[in-house]
């Protein structure tokens, strides 16, 4: 079931499109539900589809196309480190290794306490700040160094 809060937010998105084009809001709706539930279960995707009045498979197509939608549970903090070319040249590898050793997990894994998920990401269009990562798709941190990472992790409760 979608929470009232989610449906209220989705309604706001829906208002941006013609009434017979509810499908247009599918990406925002999935984002809203993921923000609330942490990830998109098959039930959550079906709920979104039913709320918008589109076929469930149509919502699944979108949810599986974009990799910022999480189809499995992730940690409370999902750290996505860019390893694309500009970041790589600015030594993102070192950042990844440092994170891996701090958290004790590899990219793509979640810590045993369910707090952190580490991810490799592609260019985030912010190469000027390389190397960089973002937390939970929204909060970006640039010009990373191992020291900055330590501070960052310490700040995440």
């Amino acid at each position, binding site marked *: 079931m979608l929470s009232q809060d989610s449906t209220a937010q989705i309604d706001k998105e829906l208002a941006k499109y013609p009434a017979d084009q509810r499908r247009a809001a599918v990406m925002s709706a999935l984002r809203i539900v993921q923000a609330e539930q942490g990830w998109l279960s098959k039930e959550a995707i079906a709920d979104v589809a039913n709320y918008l009045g589109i076929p*469930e498979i149509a919502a*699944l197509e979108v949810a*599986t196309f974009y990799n910022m939608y999480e189809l499995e549970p992730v940690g409370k903090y999902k750290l996505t480190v860019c390893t694309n070319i500009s970041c790589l040249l600015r030594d993102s590898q070192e950042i990844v290794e440092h994170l891996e050793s701090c958290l004790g997990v590899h990219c793509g894994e979640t810590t045993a306490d369910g707090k952190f998920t580490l991810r490799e990401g592609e260019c985030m269009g912010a190469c000027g700040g390389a190397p960089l990562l973002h937390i939970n798709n929204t909060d970006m941190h640039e010009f990373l160094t191992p020291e900055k990472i330590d501070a960052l992790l310490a700040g995440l409760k």
Partner: protein
Amino acid sequence: MLQIEIDGKAVEVEHGSTIIEAADKLGIPIPRFCYHKKLSVAANCRMCLVQVEKFAKPLPACATPVSDGMKIFTRSEAAVDAQKSVMEFLLINHPLDCPICDQGGECELQDIAVGYGASKTRYTEEKRVVLNKNIGPLVATDMTRCIQCTRCVRFLKEVGGMMELGLINRGEHAEITAYVDKSVDSELSGNIIDLCPVGALTSKPFRYTARPWELARRPTISAHDALGSQLEMHVKNNRVLRTIPREKESINECWISDRDRFAYEGLNSDERLTVPMIRRGDQWVETDWQSALEFASSRIKDAVAREGGNALGVLVSPNSTMEEGFLAKKIARELGCGNVDHRLRRSDFRLDGHFQGTPWMGCNIPDVQDMDRVLIIGSNLRNEHPLLTHRLRQAVRLNAAEISVVNALEDDPLMRVAFKNTCSPDDTINFLLQLLKAMSGLQRLSLCLPPTLNGLLEDVVVSNNAQAMAESLAGHGKDYDLVNPRSAVFLGNMAQQHPRYSEMYSLAEAISALCGATFGVLSEAANRVGLDLARVLPSSGALNARTMLEQPRSAYLLVNVEPEVDCHNAQLVNQALAAAGCVVAMTAYKSSALREADVLLPVTPYTESSGTFMSMEGRVQSFTAVAKPLGEARPGWKVLRVLGNLLGLSGFEYDSSEQVKNEIFGGEKPSRVVWNRLNNNLRELTEVNAKVRTESLQRVGEVPLYESDAIVRRAPSLQKMAAKKPVVAAMNAKLLAQLGLQDGELVKVSQGNGSVRLAAKCDDRVADYCVRVPICAQTAALGDLYGEIQVERAA
């Protein structure tokens, strides 16, 4: 018109057409996978790349609109290079398992690979594997073979009306799937087998039974609905192994319904009757044709000698050929018997004698797609007319047609319905009266209603819904073509089976006359119109399909009838047959429904006989046998001919079914006869009763999709589809609560002196105070399809 040139040939094409359309028109082949003329353009396979002058890169022919003066090269080096490269990419992840693939021999990928593929692969890495999906009993999947053309996805969405498959993930991980573990339930799903250019989607029932080149391909016609779809049956060792559509734009386009596609399995059923049988006491004994026919004719003769021609009742299935029906009627008439009918599922015959001709659809099939306003009365569209529903769906999709539906069930037709009124069968009449009153208030033409109706309308109070529906139908306030209105009023099967059909008919006719709409009847069965035209009907004053049972006859001749599941009232027909001294049944199947018969004459299904069907649009289509008769079964028309001889009747010297057909049409061209005879007008309106208000629970006895006829009932794969929806007594939540019942609880459902136990089911698509109980073997103890019904908690 634009002037273009393809491979040096000049051609004129319409504005807005694509390169591939222009090339197809010229007969220039361009390889393709994702493009299909009936589906939207996806342009995702890139197989159709061609070279266009002044463009640096090759362009996809299916998605490139032509422009004036365009010069296109489909066979130039650049074009062929591009096509070959795409082919190589497509084959990278394809398993190339043709030897074990059912599509082998009729595979578009195989064919095009012969022309464009390399003889050796350069790819040595691992190929990807995609897990198979179970999407139901009809379509088998081998998803590793899929090339992601998305034809199946687009078909289900655009033609089927419900997006049941999708392409999830992307790039190398892209795969076709239904949502999680869902199956594909569309009643048109089999078409994705034909559409799939590779062996990813194949027919489950046909799988591994034959290679395409071993099959004889024989044309025939569908016998399962009144559309008259053109089929091709594929036969090996005298067994029909599969059915595919023949392309006929003006009827079935390139599609067929699953019922038409998979019903052939019923032709090979173990229940086929292959020898004549006579009943001796409680025993069925096999016998030879001679004895069986002599037995039948002597019993009929006796009854007629004793009581006159009126002793006999002849019931003909509306799926019988015109020849069968005509000969059965001729036998009856020669014996001095007028009691002949094929309208077995009807219960209201008050219109008999009032028709000016044979009622039909009122327009041609493709016209439906061009309508912009349609009123459908009493039809569960997708069950009754699966493929015609798709035409209506296209009217909504492409012309934004406004559809109005008046019915006791609110099943989703998978299209946008603009106005609907869901009410009990009796209230339908009241609602149609409101509609008529609203319409007469809107009419611009000074058409007068007959005084009888005018008087009735005085007390009618028009509801907002009726007003809105009338305005939509009349095109009120809209800019429609009034001279040539593209609107229609259709009566569906449920209307025809309604106990007050004559009133519905009169009102519907009046409504359509007021708004200038086409008026028509969507016929119940494959040959309903044909048998009407051949006058397989009671002669004036004689008994019809219902009175023949209410006033039991001493002898009955049943032609292709399974009484308790083919007739309006199972109780009534079982009683009448049990009481009769002699029941002669011509049947293709051993059927427990024929337990009261005295002799079973094994006739062939239509596929093993020649014959003629007439579709609801009045198209006369004759066909020849696609296989030889099984065992000793014989075509129905031959059996009737010999029966006529044995009864000592004259005029039964036919050598071929064509002679019978010629006699039916009086030696004239069928089309001429048809156009003179099709007519939906009544001589005068019948009486309409506006005051009926039933207080009792009403049965809504629908005929489920896969219960329509004897062949379909014996097609295992279709029955597996049907089994997904168990037989229940469905009613809305309000009624369930009122009766103090729980969803799923076992209830006793009774009508007349019979009852059955079914699970109660909450179904808000059912109108107030109605119980939806389908007709099928499980409910054969019940009575009228529509009428009073009792429901109580089972003790």
